[in-house]
């Protein structure tokens, strides 16, 4: 890399390029010196690289801005091009709604203003353009308030510039900037408060989400403090001040007007559903960047000015955004931000807030897992303790933590520990054994251990909890198969089945084909032994043959899947098949999930059959105790969703293919026609048409192109038909899922008329333990299945930390999952909402279920 490039890249870093100096003034002078020498020969290379650096290293924008200001003194044309280029990218970003680019370019413009490259007035014009677009959007008459997400985003962008240039604006154009701030205040008074409900990490109180300030309100408050504070920000370097005397000599460049995209059109019919759909669309396009987790005591971050917190979060989020996949750079930029205070608590909180962000984090959770690991290595003295603090804080509030967040936390924590030798002070948490089986903290520990075992092996994890050996009780079973016909306890009736199983096993070993086995079953097994025995023998035996590994499983399903398919031709039988899997792998949650998932892959079982099995009585009673049924359900819904996504991708690429095939065909046709109409001389006589050989060739090209076009059209049509079918099936899936939720919740929730809330569910607990025990042992679930309750003995000790009774916890957990599913698949559910409303969420549906679904969909109850 040429040296000017590495100087630009490394500016502001403590690096060898700058002799480990950390003085920004030195850096700028050195880098400027190098650029000035190169400008004459390499300006066409420098320009895009400089812009790329400011986009991808936005925490260094003040340094780049000052550099550009200095370059402006050397080469006005070069800087003019930078400004023009920026203008084009900015307009393009606005038109296509590229949020990150819009935000970063506005900061870049602000800094260019500080370096005298553009006039403060031009920047104010940008602000006013965005602000007026925002104000129109939220206007009921002229705009479309369902798109408030975009309006808020614009206003947040304006406010976000002020830490970088508020002081300059207030000094140079005080009236204009005051006007902008007054405008923002007016905007804030028209817009609706954004309720966080449905997306908040914790379900603390009923209306907590509404009382809390939303992101914009919060930022506004921080900016007001900043303004009262004389616009002083510690976290933003102001290198241009050191060069002020030179910079004032620079020529300011024109920054032309920009335009915001048209206001989105109102839906044709005004209804809550239409409004909700548009709002959902707007929030997808203009998502809120972060949501604060606030898990650490204020004392850890209180010495920060309110605005510094915002600025550091911006820095961190941008590093996470741009250095995804560059481990070394990501970790080193995260720890090396240009701020004069420590921020590891803030850093941890920011990363966790992304890991747990609802509905989806910008990247897969495993990315944040990696970042946390790398930071633990980069700051071995400081960061691990902070991470541990975050884990403890989240663990303390786990009962209030959103269900989806709990799942992500479990996956993250187990993975994290697997990279650090599974060391954790488990003794701190040994007390969860005294809590009832359904206590969220206890379930959390149990699920973390389950995932640890999956990543490692049972004995290893057993050994890792040696500082709290009693926790062994929460380890999963050792995980072997539970084969009915292993011969260990073959008694009476099963002896015959045992023989059948052995026979089948021999047939498989003898490499008999699936067809031969089907014939054998149909002729000599099914008619004699009936469905139940046949199914049990066939499924158990085949599973056992495929039990050695994932690959063994796939192989047996590929070879003998047809046998099971033939036997389980309808949904009822598929449910029996899945139940047989559950029984065979009852000691191994992972293999249960994988096997069912693979069976769905090769279409042995449908997603509807899986849903039915998940809602079978033995699973229902696990809803609050284990992740196992939920994992199976998540897999089934996600596989359905993945199929739809794949079809959409294929269709979109086919559409492109059709367009180019059409173009090719019409071009070939035009060539042919041109050739046909051309006069050519044949034996001295003018004849219509070119020479026959060439014509023949063109003709065949045109025919082929036409054929190609038609076949593309055909495959597009075929795929579209498949997608339409998949979407119909999806509707059926969600109908079935919600109907099931509806039924089981109706059975468990207190009477709807009793005005029950989540909060009241949490606070229903017996005054004395005796009452508690009596009541919980009469739960319907337990009565139905007559399963002895192990928890009773533990329940007695349950005290301070888990007062929620079993039935209530069951309801809380299940409602939590209802919300999580609704939120995760909101985009897929919205198109079917009318049907769901008509068939499931009718008037007699329990209000708590309705609330869980609607808050997952972000359909506000006050908009109904």
């Amino acid at each position, binding site marked *: 890399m040429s040296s000017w490039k590495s100087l630009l890249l490394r500016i502001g870093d403590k690096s060898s390029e700058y002799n480990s100096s950390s003085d920004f003034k030195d850096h700028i002078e050195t880098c400027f010196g190098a650029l000035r020498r190169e400008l004459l020969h390499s300006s066409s290379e420098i320009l895009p690289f400089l812009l790329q650096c400011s986009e991808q290293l936005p925490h260094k924008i003040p340094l780049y801005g000052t550099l550009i200001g200095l370059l402006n003194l050397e080469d006005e044309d070069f800087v003019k091009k930078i400004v023009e280029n920026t203008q084009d990218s900015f307009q393009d970003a606005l038109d296509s709604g590229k949020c990150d680019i819009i935000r970063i370019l506005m900061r870049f413009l602000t800094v260019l203003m500080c370096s005298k490259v553009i006039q403060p007035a031009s920047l104010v014009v940008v602000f006013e353009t965005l602000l007026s677009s925002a104000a129109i959007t939220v206007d009921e008459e002229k705009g479309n308030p369902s798109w408030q997400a975009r309006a808020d985003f614009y206003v947040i962008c304006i406010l976000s510039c002020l830490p970088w240039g508020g002081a300059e604006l207030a000094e140079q154009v005080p009236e204009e900037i005051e006007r902008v701030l007054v405008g923002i205040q007016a905007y804030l008074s028209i817009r609706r408060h954004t309720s966080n409900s449905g997306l908040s990490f914790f379900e603390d109180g009923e209306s907590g989400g509404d009382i809390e300030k939303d992101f914009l309100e919060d930022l506004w408050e921080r900016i007001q403090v900043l303004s009262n504070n004389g616009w002083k920000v510690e976290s933003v370097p102001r290198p241009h001040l050191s060069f002020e005397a030179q910079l004032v000599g620079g020529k300011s460049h024109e920054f032309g007007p920009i335009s915001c995209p048209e206001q989105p059109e109102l839906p044709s019919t005004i209804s809550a559903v239409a409004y909700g759909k548009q709002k959902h669309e707007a929030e997808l396009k203009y998502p809120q960047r972060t949501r604060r987790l606030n898990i650490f005591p204020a004392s850890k971050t209180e010495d920060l000015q309110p605005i510094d917190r915002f600025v550091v979060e911006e820095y961190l989020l941008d590093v996470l955004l741009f250095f995804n996949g560059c*481990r070394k750079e990501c970790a080193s930029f995260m720890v090396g931000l240009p701020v004069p205070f420590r921020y590891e608590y803030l850093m941890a909180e920011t990363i966790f807030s992304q890991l747990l962000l609802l509905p989806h984090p910008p990247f897969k959770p495993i990315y944040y*897992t990696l970042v946390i690991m790398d930071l633990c290595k980069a700051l071995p003295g400081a960061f691990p303790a902070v991470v541990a603090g975050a884990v403890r804080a989240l663990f303390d509030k786990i009962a209030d933590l959103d269900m989806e967040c709990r799942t992500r936390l479990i996956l993250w924590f187990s993975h994290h520990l697997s990279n650090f030798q599974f060391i954790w002070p488990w003794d701190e948490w040994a007390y969860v054994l005294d809590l009832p089986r359904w206590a969220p903290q206890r379930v959390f520990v149990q699920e973390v251990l389950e995932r640890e075992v999956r990543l490692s092996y049972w004995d290893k994890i057993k050994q890792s909890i040696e500082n709290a050996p009693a926790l062994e009780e929460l380890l999963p079973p050792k995980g072997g198969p539970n084969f009915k016909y292993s011969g260990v306890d073959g008694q009476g009736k099963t002896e015959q089945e045992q023989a059948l199983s052995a026979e089948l096993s021999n047939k498989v070993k003898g490499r008999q084909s699936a067809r031969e086995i089907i014939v054998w079953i149909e002729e000599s097994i099914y008619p004699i032994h009936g469905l139940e025995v046949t199914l049990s023998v066939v499924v158990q035996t085949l599973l056992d043959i495929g039990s050695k590994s994932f690959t063994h499983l796939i192989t047996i399903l590929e070879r003998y899947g047809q046998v099971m398919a033939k036997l389980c031709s309808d949904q009822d039988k598929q449910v029996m098949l899945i139940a047989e899997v559950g029984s065979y792998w009852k000691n191994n949650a992972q293999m249960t999930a994988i096997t069912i998932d693979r069976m769905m892959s090769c279409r042995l079982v449908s997603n509807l059959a899986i849903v039915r099995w998940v809602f079978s009585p033995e699973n229902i009673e696990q809803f609050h105790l284990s992740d196992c049924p939920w994992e199976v359900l998540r897999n089934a819904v996600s596989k359905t969703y993945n199929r739809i996504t794949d079809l959409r991708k294929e269709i979109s690429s086919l559409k492109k293919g059709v367009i180019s095939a059409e173009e090719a065909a019409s071009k070939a046709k035009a060539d042919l026609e041109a050739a046909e109409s051309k006069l050519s001389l044949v034996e001295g006589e003018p004849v219509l048409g070119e020479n026959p050989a060439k014509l023949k060739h063109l003709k065949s090209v045109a025919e082929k192109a036409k054929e190609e076009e038609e076949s593309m059209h055909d495959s597009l049509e075929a795929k579209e038909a498949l997608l339409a079918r998949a979407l119909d099936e999806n509707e059926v899936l969600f109908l079935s899922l919600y109907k099931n939720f509806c039924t089981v919740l109706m059975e468990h929730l207190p009477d709807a008329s009793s005005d029950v809330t989540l909060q009241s569910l949490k606070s229903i607990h017996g005054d004395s333990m005796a009452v508690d025990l009596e009541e919980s042992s009469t739960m319907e679930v337990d009565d139905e299945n007559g399963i002895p309750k192990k928890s009773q003995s533990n329940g007695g000790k349950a005290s301070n930390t888990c007062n929620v009774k079993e039935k209530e916890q069951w309801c809380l957990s299940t409602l939590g999952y209802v919300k999580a599913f609704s939120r995760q698949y909101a985009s897929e559910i919205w198109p079917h909402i009318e049907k769901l409303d008509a068939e499931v969420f009718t008037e007699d549906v329990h209000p708590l279920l309705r609330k869980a679904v609607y808050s997952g969909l972000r359909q506000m109850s006050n908009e109904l």
Partner: protein
Amino acid sequence: MASLFKDPTKISAYRDRRFNGTQEEFEQALLNSTTVYIGNMSFYTTEEQVYELFSRAGEIKKIIMGLDKNSKTPCGFCFVLYYSREDTEDAVKYISGTILDDRPIRVDFDWGFVEGRQWGRGRSGGQVRGGYGKLVQRELEAQRQLVDYGAGSLGTFPPVMPPHYGKHGGGHGHGGSYRHGRDYHRKRHRDDDRHGREAPKRNSDHESRRASDHDSDSRPEKNPRFRESGDSDDEEDNDNKRRP
């Protein structure tokens, strides 16, 4: 996203000499592939462990364990096939260099599994650690340097927190334990000098892991088909020198 520090043209430092085609075709295959090669694995690691870890990058289609050609037991590598390219890229980005079963694994794009590639290419049947092994070592070394990378402003502050998780103090500290972990292999290696003399050519990293495995008794029970001994080999047809 970050194009500043990454050379987008350099997709893999490793060139599989069994690939029939030009360098360009090889690179093209890597760019479109939905297969990853995982190296430097423990011989004991099971498909289910691989599944649990790699499914965090996306839905897995298939896993193919690399086997010793003679003993037909796992020998430290495998292939994972994904359905989507994006998930494949994420597996390489986010899993390479992290720990699976106490070993830092390397994850790389692979040009695509074909029958026969599951067999180790070593002269005695195991997997070659020559070309790849060196890369693994270099990469892991680079990643270890992360530890000392705290040159930024945070790094300049002395740690104020006690370097462990514990409210209870003492015992195993996290921060401390990492430092411990960092020197772990080297330290173990020194401790294990006698093993080293017995098998001087063994990959030190691997050897130390084996020696430090407290559960060598319980482990084979879980995976009876795994062999106890054996390690990286020279490729049959190859001229690679082993690491001393």
